């Protein structure tokens, strides 16, 4: 709870940063289309509120569905890779490879395969998100105390029981690290997905605003992306603390 409660330092730093930004823009007279001041951004946000909401909902939908898809695929893959050393050796390089390909470079292929609907965006989100989850889950499963595993072996526990009772619980902190990283990337992933070809969503809104030199609107969209992402991240942090109550006692200092 420590991380969630007591937001004052974060708020303080953010407010301080915003003030600095505002003053910098006002004093240095940077053009508004290069760097709008926070107040300009808020203004744009208020003015465009209904349109923004519309696009935000679409982007969030893509991000959430893509994230969930990523979680499912990632856990499945992590289990597969962890269980069968054949898959470990075979899939690992392929997993890594999947992350090294710049998505923009294969945009036409994605469009050809998945069309223009929500699917390619969801696929992009899932592509961006599943990797940190897989990697962290595998690492977490490997970090399980070998003594505990041995104990279960002596009880003739099945592989699945060892997963359920030892390796999953001890992989949880690591898994959550991965989920948090993925959550961070999910909304950005949806925006990039929209960039590949779409007609709605925050990505499209930003792009159009940017080409109309309405930088304050671009920043308004960025602000929404940042805020919703942080919300998502914080939610996972809370969930983690709910699901790992025993960690509280160990982490006093």
């Amino acid at each position: 709870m420590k991380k969630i409660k007591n937001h004052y330092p974060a708020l303080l730093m953010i407010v301080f940063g915003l003030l600095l930004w505002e003053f910098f823009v006002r004093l240095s007279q940077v053009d508004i289309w290069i760097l709008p001041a926070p107040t300009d951004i808020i203004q744009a946000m208020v003015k465009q509120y209904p349109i923004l909401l519309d696009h935000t909902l679409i982007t969030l939908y893509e991000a959430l569905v893509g994230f969930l898809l990523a979680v499912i695929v990632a856990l499945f893959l992590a289990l597969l890779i962890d269980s069968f050393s054949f898959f470990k050796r075979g899939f690992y390089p392929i997993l890594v490879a999947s992350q090294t390909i710049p998505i923009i470079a294969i945009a036409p292929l994605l469009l050809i395969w998945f069309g223009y609907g929500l699917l390619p965006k969801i696929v992009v989100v899932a592509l961006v998100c599943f990797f940190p989850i897989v990697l962290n889950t595998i690492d977490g499963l490997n970090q399980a105390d070998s003594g505990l595993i041995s104990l279960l072996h002596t009880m003739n526990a099945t592989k699945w029981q060892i997963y359920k009772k030892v390796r999953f619980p001890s992989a949880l902190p690591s898994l959550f690290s991965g989920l948090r990283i993925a959550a961070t990337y999910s909304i950005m992933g949806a925006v990039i997905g929209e960039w590949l070809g779409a007609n709605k969503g925050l990505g499209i809104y930003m792009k159009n605003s940017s080409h109309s030199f309405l930088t304050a609107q671009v920043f308004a969209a960025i602000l929404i992306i940042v805020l919703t992402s942080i919300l998502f991240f914080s939610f996972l942090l809370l969930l983690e603390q709910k699901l790992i109550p025993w960690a509280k006692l160990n982490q006093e200092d």
Partner: protein
Amino acid sequence: EPPKEKAKPMNIQVMLDWVPNTNHTGLYVAKEKEWYQEQGLNVEIVQPSDGGGAAQMVAAGKAQFGISAQEEVTNARAQQIPIVSIAAIIQHNTSGFASPKEKNITTPKDFEGKNYGGWGAESEKAVIQSVMEKYNADFNKVKFLTVGDADFFTITKRDVDFEWIYYGWTGIDAELRKFPINYIELRQIAPELDYYTPVIITNETYIKEHPDIIKKFMEATSKGYEFAISNPEEAANILLKEVPGMNAELVKASQKWLSKKYQEDAPQWGIQKPEVWSNYAKWMADHKLIPSMIDVNKAFTNDFLPKK
């Protein structure tokens, strides 16, 4: 005329070349006024990625129509990619070289010793080299900076002296901002470079299999552009309504300017002339921008424009 039987509307995708702008107004007007609907078409307008992609999508049959440019179509034809231009959206090339007034760049001769900011394509260099040679300027004295997607106003803040712009968008914006610029229109200094940009494309197979649909599509599209020509103010409002996040002031001013440019001196909106296609293809071949000359008659057609 209303369709004879209540057939399910045909789903059609049009992929743009860039972010929506006043080049695309006719499409949005036709969509908003339900002129496509009347033709039995359900049209979806899709924005492309930064890497472009309309040509690929259309060639692959994943979009029935796309917005492209003569250069791209020529390039594609040179790689045996079967796309065909079916209308010129703007009759003449409205692009040119812009620079902040204080840089004093009024002719290609002044490019010497200056920094050019572009997207890094070979054809850009060839164009600049051509026009400079006409003015006996030394092309090697221009420094090329690739600035990608960044816009004129941003890059001229930082080291870049001049950029290639569409006047109908960036030029108008400069007027609105009261940002004084010098502008050298390309077609004025190099008539052979008065190529069509943008154009509407489809692919060869689609032409063979669905000429009727193409006709219907172009019927409504022409109507859209004709509306934009005669009602720029209302057309601008339609575009603003259909596309999120645009700058209303800019769209309206740009629309007003472009309304006179869509058709300009042509007998009908959309008409393409063979010599424009062959001149430019020849120029590209001469400058080794394509491996060999293409058959220009296959690259474009006026057949689908409504008969007037």
